[in-house]
C-alpha cells in the first residue's frame, strides 16, 4: 500500500516536471506540443477510490496551469477524461474482462489499447483547446490543433507504454 502511494506521488510530480520542462517546449512546426501528462489517467490504478482520483486529476491539471499561465484549461480537460475513463473502459472491454484489482493498460489487446488512448487523448485535447480559444468562431483552429497535437501525444504514449511495461 505504501509502495503504491509512493509510486502515485512519483508519477504525479514526474509527469508535471516532464510536461513543463520538456514537452511544453517542443513546438513542432511552430505550435504542436504533446500533452503527455494524460498518461496519469492511463496509469492510475483502477481499483482505488474514484473521488480521490478525480480530485488528484484536477490538481495535476491545475499544477500544469500554474506553470503555463492558462487559467483552468488543463484542470478542466484532465478532470473530464478522468471522469469518462471508467465508463469508457467498461464499454470497450466487456465487463467480465475487467479485473479491477489486476488491471493494467499493458494487458489490453493492442487494437483496443490504441482506441482507448485515442479516445481519451482526443477528448482531452478538444476540451483543452476549446477552453483555450473560448470562442466558436475558432472552431477550425481548435479541431486542427486538437488533431495534430493529439496524434503526437498518442504516438508518444503508445510507444512508451509498449516500451516500459513489462508483459507477463
Amino acid at each position, binding site marked *: 500500500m505504501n509502495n503504491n502511494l509512493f509510486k502515485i506521488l512519483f508519477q504525479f510530480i514526474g509527469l508535471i516536471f516532464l510536461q513543463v520542462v520538456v514537452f511544453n517546449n517542443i513546438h513542432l512546426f511552430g505550435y*504542436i506540443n504533446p500533452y503527455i501528462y494524460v498518461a496519469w489517467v492511463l496509469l492510475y490504478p483502477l481499483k482505488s477510490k474514484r473521488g480521490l482520483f478525480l480530485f488528484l486529476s*484536477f490538481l495535476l491539471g491545475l499544477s500544469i496551469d500554474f*506553470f*503555463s*499561465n492558462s*487559467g*483552468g484549461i488543463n484542470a478542466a480537460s484532465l*478532470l473530464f477524461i478522468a471522469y469518462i475513463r471508467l465508463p469508457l473502459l467498461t464499454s470497450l472491454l466487456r465487463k467480465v474482462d475487467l479485473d479491477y484489482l489486476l488491471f493494467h493498460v499493458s494487458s489490453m489487446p493492442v487494437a483496443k489499447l490504441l482506441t482507448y488512448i485515442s479516445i481519451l487523448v482526443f477528448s482531452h485535447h478538444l476540451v483543452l483547446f476549446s477552453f483555450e480559444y473560448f470562442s466558436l468562431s475558432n472552431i477550425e483552429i481548435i479541431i486542427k490543433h486538437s488533431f495534430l497535437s493529439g496524434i503526437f501525444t498518442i504516438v508518444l504514449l503508445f510507444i512508451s507504454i509498449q516500451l516500459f511495461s513489462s508483459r507477463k
Partner: protein
Amino acid sequence: MQQIIYFLRKYRYFLLFIALELIALLFTLQSHSFHKSKFVNSATSITGGLYTQVSNINEFFTLKKENKVLAEENNRLKNILSKHLHVKKDSRVFDSLSVQSKYNYISAKIIKNEYSKINNFITINKGSSSGLKSDLGVINTKGIIGIVKNVSNKYATILSILNSYSKLNVRLKNSNYFGTLIWNGNNYNTVQLIDIPRQADLQVGDTIITGGRSAIFPEGIMVGTIKDFKFEDTKFDEINITLFNDMSALGYVQIIENTERKEQQLLEEQTSNE
C-alpha cells in the same frame, strides 16, 4: 430527506466532477478577462523557482547569441554617443538636480517564454522586491515585448504582445498616423496593425514604432516593419508587421517605469471630468 441523501450518494462522483469542473471554468474565465489579476499564474515561488533552474541550464546554449546582441547594442549606443559628443554645450546653466529622467529602467532575465499558444505569457526573475508593478512596459534591445501583468515578490508574468488580449498604441515612424497593434495567433513573427486611417500612405518595409500616447511605453521604441497589407473598401484591411524581435528566442529584457505616469493620468482624468 432520505431521498436527498440517497440522491447525493448515488451521484456523488458526478457532483464532485461538476463542482471541480466549475472551479476550472471559473479560473479559465478569470484568465480570459484582461483587467483582473489572475490567481493561476506562474509568478509563484514554486513555478518561478523551477523555471529559474531550467533557464540557468538553457542559458549556456544561448550565450553566444546573447553576446552578439550585446555587441550590436554597444555599437548602436556608441554611434549615438559619438554624434552627441561634438554638439556644442548649452550655455544656459542647469540645476542638475532638477533634471530627472522620466523613465527608469529595470533589467530582468526571462525564465520562461511562451509563443506557440493563443494567449502567451512570459515569466521573468524580478518582482515587487525590485520595484516592479503591474502595467509597466517591457522591452529589449531590439524592440517591444509586452506589459507586466502579475507580480509576486521575486517573479513577474508579462502579457506578451503575442497574446490575443494585447492591444498597444503604435505609429508609423515617418508619419504621424497612429494605430493599434494586435495579434491574430497565427505566426509568432508577425503581428497585425489595425485602426490606421485610410489616408495614411503605407509602403511595404515602413518602420512601426510605439506611439507614446499611453503612459506605459515611451515614444519611439522599435516594433517592426510592414510585411504586407490589403486595401479594401476604402480602408486598410489587414496590415501584417514583421517584428524586429525573434519572439521565440528572448533573453534579457528591460522594464520601463514611467515616473510621471501618475501625474499624467491624474491630469487626463481631470480634463475628461470637466
